[in-house]
């Protein structure tokens, strides 16, 4: 049975970018405002899931040729990597550091190693959520 999903596809085309942008925004906003790696990752994942709902797996896979299991693994590696990385600077496990740099155009911006850690969290969330949903929903 083929369902008529013109409306869904049309809406998805516009909405997915909003969702993904929101996800990225929330990820970076996390340090000072609501947001962060977990929520950002979840929103990115729900955007991707929406794409899968509107289109079939092959079409989406052509546009996003990621193996989401590897995305999750990369995320965990990033998170644990920043944790171990602090040992090389002779500080306790998982120590984070931050600084402010004047960037042209944007002005004074904060940079923190937490961002790398949070990126790991976000990637894991995206990878795992999409992997779970894909593996459950795929028909035999």
């Amino acid at each position, binding site marked *: 049975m083929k369902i008529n999903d013109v409306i869904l596809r049309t809406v998805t085309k516009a909405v997915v970018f909003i969702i993904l942008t929101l996800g990225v925004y929330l990820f970076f906003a996390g340090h000072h405002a609501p947001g962060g790696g977990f929520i950002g990752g979840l*929103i990115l994942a729900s955007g991707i*899931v929406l794409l899968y709902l509107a289109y079939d797996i092959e079409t989406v896979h052509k546009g996003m040729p990621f193996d989401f299991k590897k995305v*999750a693994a990369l995320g965990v590696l990033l998170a644990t990597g920043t944790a171990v990385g602090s040992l090389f600077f002779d500080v306790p496990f998982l120590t984070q550091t931050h600084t402010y740099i004047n960037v042209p155009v944007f002005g004074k911006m904060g940079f923190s190693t937490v961002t790398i850690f949070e990126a790991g969290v976000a990637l894991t969330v995206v990878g795992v959520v999409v992997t*779970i949903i894909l*593996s*459950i929903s795929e028909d035999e």
Partner: protein
Amino acid sequence: MVIVLIMILFPFVCAALIPLLYRRLRRVAHLGWFVLSVPIILFLLLARYIPQIAEGKTFIHTYEWIPSFDINFTTYLDGLSMIFALLITGVGSLVILYSIFYLSTKESLHHFYCYLLLFMGAMLGVVFSDNLMVLYTFWELTSVSSFLLIAFWHHRKASRAGARKAMTITVFGGLAMLAGFLMLYVASGTFSIRDIVANVEVIREHTLFVPALLLILIGAFTKSAQFPFHIWLPDAMEAPTPVSAYLHSATMVKAGIYIVARFSPVFGGEAVWFWLVSGIGLVTLFWGSFNAVRQTDLKALLAYSTVSQLGLIMSLFGLGSVGHYFGYAESSILYTQASFAALFHLINHSTFKGALFMMVGIVDHEVGTRDIRRLGGLMALMPVTFTIAVIGGFSMAGLPPFNGFLSKEMFFTAVLAIRDVEAFSIADLGLVFPIVAWVASIFTFVYSMILIGRTFFGKLKPDKMDKKPHEAPLGMLISPIILCLFVVGIFFFPNVLGHYILEPAMASIYPTFPSASELTPHIHAWHGINAELLMTFGVVFVGVILFKTLEKWKPLYRVFSQKYTFNTYYNRMVEFGENSSTNFTKKYMTGNLTHYFVYIYVFFVALIAGYFIWSEAFAFNFVQDSAIESYELILVFVMMFAAVWMLFAKGRVTAMLLNGVLGYSIAFFFVIFRAPDLALTQLVVESVTTALFLLCFKYLPDLMPEITRKRVKWSNAVISIFVGATVTLVGLAVVHYDKFEPVSVYFNDAYKLAGGSNIVNTILGDFRAFDTMLEVVVLLIAGLGVYTLTKLKPRKEEADHENQ
């Protein structure tokens, strides 16, 4: 002396590199050639320090690891660790050289050498560690690597069973030892062995002193296969022969002896220590040699022989501990000679037993069998192997001109000397020591003769052999020949060994004695006709008679019923453990989700409500609470309505949507109470889980009206009400709960410490980042779990995998 630390880590690094380089290296040459360089480098590095160690120097290096718990990576190189380290690297080099010719490239060599290097590093860690916790870690690592090596041919059932047995027994002992170490820590306040030895007078008064002694001894006895824990060693012979030669005769099984030697300055003066170490040692010596005689498998014979020889060394350390009781005096020097003999025999045993194991491996490899009933007359066909067997076997039997003779004579001296000691009420039982030692030596002589005689003399039985026997290739012979050269060399120049190697080790065992050279006797090959020599003559005389009449008295062994061996008890224990745990697990793992929830909730209520009641924390004070707004009330009613409706929902989708209502209402509460982060998270999580549920429910059959008995329904209702009440009451009580320190003080300075004004995220990323990191890992594992469950079909196991 950071170099000792590097020495421990070097094998581990190489072991980690093997899987990476394996594919490239295997094309160039046998992997063993690369691995061989590791112990050789370590041996040469160590050898450089022999002169300095002989002068009485020790080297210590501390790397601060967890200083707040007094756990530091402290390496300590002294005479005692030197002996063991030299054996580990020296015998290790020879074994790896031998294994290159023993194992074909068709075997999974990368596994083998990876495990072997792992073991080598762990073993070096054991003998170099000064910190008890670090020592324990390496100790268990030797058990694990030994497990992997015994089960190397894991397609064989016997290999797996042997590996499990060795692991069960040695890890049991290891855990006992850990408890002993912790008791020592309580008594002394330090994990450092050197500090414990220095403060021994204080520790001796502590009530935990004797329990610690007993527990540590259990660890040492299990590892060194002492009676009645010896049963794992013969089964460990399922490992490839190089492993048997290395782990199960020269190094790992001696870790227990190392512990006994290392701790004898602490416990040496105790009567319990003396009786246990020397007594169990003597029993093991006798029982091992007695049982070795009836073995028909050459490796099993050597295994029992190793058990017995380990008992000999153990009992010598026990006898030597008398020296600690008397303290430094002219007369107590006599008793310290036992410890000297123990160290001497330790080295001798490694040389001749290593050679003998390699010899058996050669026979197995070139003839195809190790069963002495099928062997015989190999002397003419394998002359070099025969020579190795004679040198090793005669040394084991304690005959001149081989090193075993010297240490066995010293053993006789020690057991004769102990008769007159006026302490620990030895005098009443004094005569038992020399008699047991003498009888055990006779059996040792007999099985040594069986080993040589039944393999190499007599008639050749070519029809019973799997292969046409011929001499081994040169490469396989080099290692045992080198060991045999040591066997002979040590006999002729024992005092070189005595001065450079044994003397500093004596100083570590008797740190309170002023001079180690006083403790080092001059070893004479010929000491005139005395009681010891007469005992040796007796051993040879009776031994030859017993060997000649072996067939007549061997049926005696059948008098003992097999029902009452320790192996039977062990098997019964394992069977009982497996059955009872299976039955128990079946009782509660019913596969019914409701049951699991019942366990979880009952436990939850009992623990949480129980704790709150116990700590009298249910204190409520509503005075300070803010007023309840009307929209909050509406939300609460919506949630209650959804929750109650869910109980009576007919379809899954309805129930799920109602669950969603609950979730979104909570998000609303977060909004009302100004927690935008939580609200956001809750909303997104709720959406994603709802989508997931819908996907899953597609595959489930429609809800069936459940037929449950009334009693069950009522008990479930009671549990649910208790859970709800607990959560509510705890929620109300925590506002005023003051039994724990609040964690929120941490986060007061969030902006200053972590530079983030979003406190939730600074908690997640900075203050409690460890939790977050592990949660991410858990998430990944859960994802992979779902993936494997839904995607991967169970592969068909090869049928012979289990049943060979």
